């Protein structure tokens, strides 16, 4: 499997920006692992955190830069940046198993958000590694449903190395 790379992409908040980016990825044969979009502190600009699996990351960045609505691209790695993800997970848990599942979730700072007759749903936030570790542990109980937000990431230091806008 190709290694995952995290791109933090500052874009103009204009209609169709997401379509432009996904169309570009489709056309150039780049694979998106996850994509999260949201507003930034600056009005008119949105931040996309894109996790890509692309052997030619340089090409991905250059092609993204060519999109008129893309303002800045920063490549993030897990050492110099903070990465988080949120996950909602529904696990099979009969009354008998409930406390065991809850205990496991607590270790991972999971919060129960819904409890049913034979299931329990909780929310967990954390690094992708932490979420995956938890998933492995609770999988034996029976995974009924799973939603992940996609990764969001931010550079640790404000004086970040900036990629020169080349588009």
């Amino acid at each position, binding site marked *: 499997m190709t290694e995952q790379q995290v791109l933090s992409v500052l874009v*103009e908040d204009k*209609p169709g920006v997401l379509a432009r980016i996904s169309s570009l990825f489709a056309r150039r044969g780049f694979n998106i692992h996850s994509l999260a979009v949201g507003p930034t502190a600056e009005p008119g600009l949105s931040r996309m955190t894109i996790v890509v699996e692309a052997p030619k990351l340089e*090409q991905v960045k250059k092609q993204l*830069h*060519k*999109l*008129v609505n893309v303002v*800045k691209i920063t490549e993030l790695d897990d050492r110099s940046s903070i990465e988080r993800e949120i996950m909602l997970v529904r696990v099979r848990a009969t009354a008998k198993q409930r406390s065991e599942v809850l205990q496991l979730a607590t270790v991972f700072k999971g919060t129960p958000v819904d409890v049913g007759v034979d299931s329990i749903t909780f929310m967990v936030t954390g690094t992708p590694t932490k979420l995956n570790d938890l998933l492995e542990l609770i999988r034996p109980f029976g995974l009924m449903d799973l939603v992940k937000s996609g990764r969001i990431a931010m550079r640790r230091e404000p004086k970040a190395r900036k990629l020169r806008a*080349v*588009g």
Partner: protein
Amino acid sequence: MITGAEVLIKALEYQEVDTAFGIPGGAILPAYDPLLDAGFRHILARHEQGAGHMAEGYAWATGKVGVAIATSGPGATNLVTPLADALMDSVPMVAITGQVPTYAVGNDAFQEAHTTGITMPATKHNYFVTHVEEIAQTIAEAFHLASTGRPGPVLVDIPKDVLNDRVRWRDPEPVALPGYKPTVSPHPRRIREAIRLIENAERPILYVGGGIIKAEAGTALTAFTDLTNMPVITTLMGRGAVSDHHPNVLGMPGMHGLYAATTAIQKADLLVAIGVRFDDRVTGDPDAFAPFAKVIHADIDPAEIGKVRVPEVPIVGDARLILEALIEVWADKPRPKLEKWWTTIKNWQERYPLHFDQQPDGTLKPQYVISRLRDQAHPEAVLVSGVGQHQMWASQYWRFDHPRQWINSGGLGTMGFAVPAAIGAKAGKPDHQVIAVDGDGCFQMTFQELITAAYEQIPIKVALFNNAAHGMVRQWQRLFYNERFSGSDLGRQLPDYPKLAESLGCAGLQATRAEDVDDVVSTMLSIDDRPVVAEFVVDRDEMVFPMVPAGGSNDIVLNGPEDL
């Protein structure tokens, strides 16, 4: 207060548009009313694809932005081919499309298509205008994007109600796009690195393409060629970048390139690549391409650098500024003799020239027709080509003196390009002789635009190579499909081209024998009061050589049928 439609026309005038090509329809109707009083010419095409290629031909010939106008739905979708063509060949173009009224958008209204969605991957950028206040600024941005950086097509989609809304005219503000800042000035360190490689090279090659034409860098390139004595190889897109009469020019490389050009790249120790993108028709198998060469790659588009070949020296910038910087740093270094290199190259040129065999009473050879046409045409003539065998022969045999004398569909390979593009070129350069070289397969795709040419009094000349086949397809079927000519036979008798031409309002001529060619060519060139179609009935089995089979190594060039 004026209408959005009036704003649109005024915004086009503000951009100093002198010609637009289009077809009206429901959604764009409001714009066609003020168009009647516009300060520029509107040329009514017969098909939106024609309007699009006319805008391209205009842009190729003049260097200015070509403008195409169409209505919503089918009008817009018919523009997709020219847009994709313009994107591939970096042709500056602005397309304006009408859209169904805002309240109807998304309801599958009559003649509704998601134009911005459909054209997203076929444009450099596109716009959907939602408010009448945005029209003037959007048009200004569209022209800016189309004509700067790496040029390309930009589409502006405007709903009918926005065209009907009223607003006060305000001059557009200077364009400021936060995500669009093309690098035009090259980095001085890169320039010095490049010069160091060039002075130390023993077998250098200047490999230049469309970027030279787009950047108006021909003069600088010629000067740099004279200083460095490097052999110059002009790609299909870069033909005319340096005059073909210049002794250093080896011509076109690649799949149907001249042997000396293709081989010189293979043996070079340095490629100075400017405004080229290492296209597969040039490189053949990229892993076997120029195996001994270090590469300096200069381009306005950073994404082209390293896309196919990782260069030793990357230079991002405008080709003219790069060449001027190279010239400045080169200063008064002595002119390299490169004697051994030139001896080797001259030897290739002598041993493997282009060749064909025209028997006086034999079937007419297309290369013979092209040669005779070249010799009689005006030296400043603009040559426009379709796509296929005739295109390759035209590029191989013509001698271009300047940039913008050669217009064709290079990257997308759009059959049917020649006739409308020639009309656009002639509209942009009415004082130039404009000759379209076309094949019968291409011609049959867009010849209805000759009605446009006749009606609008745009006297282009069409040299029609009739081999009654999709010639390049036939060539491949002969070489790679056991001569099973599937779907490539067009029929010798249909249509009667001279009669067809006459019925379209053009003069119609025909030559079937070698001895007729000169007369037909001179008649064709002398008719200036209407378009002319001269049909040359040529040998359908003639093949384009040299040839490097697709994906093969450029080390193996077939020079003629004798090499098969």
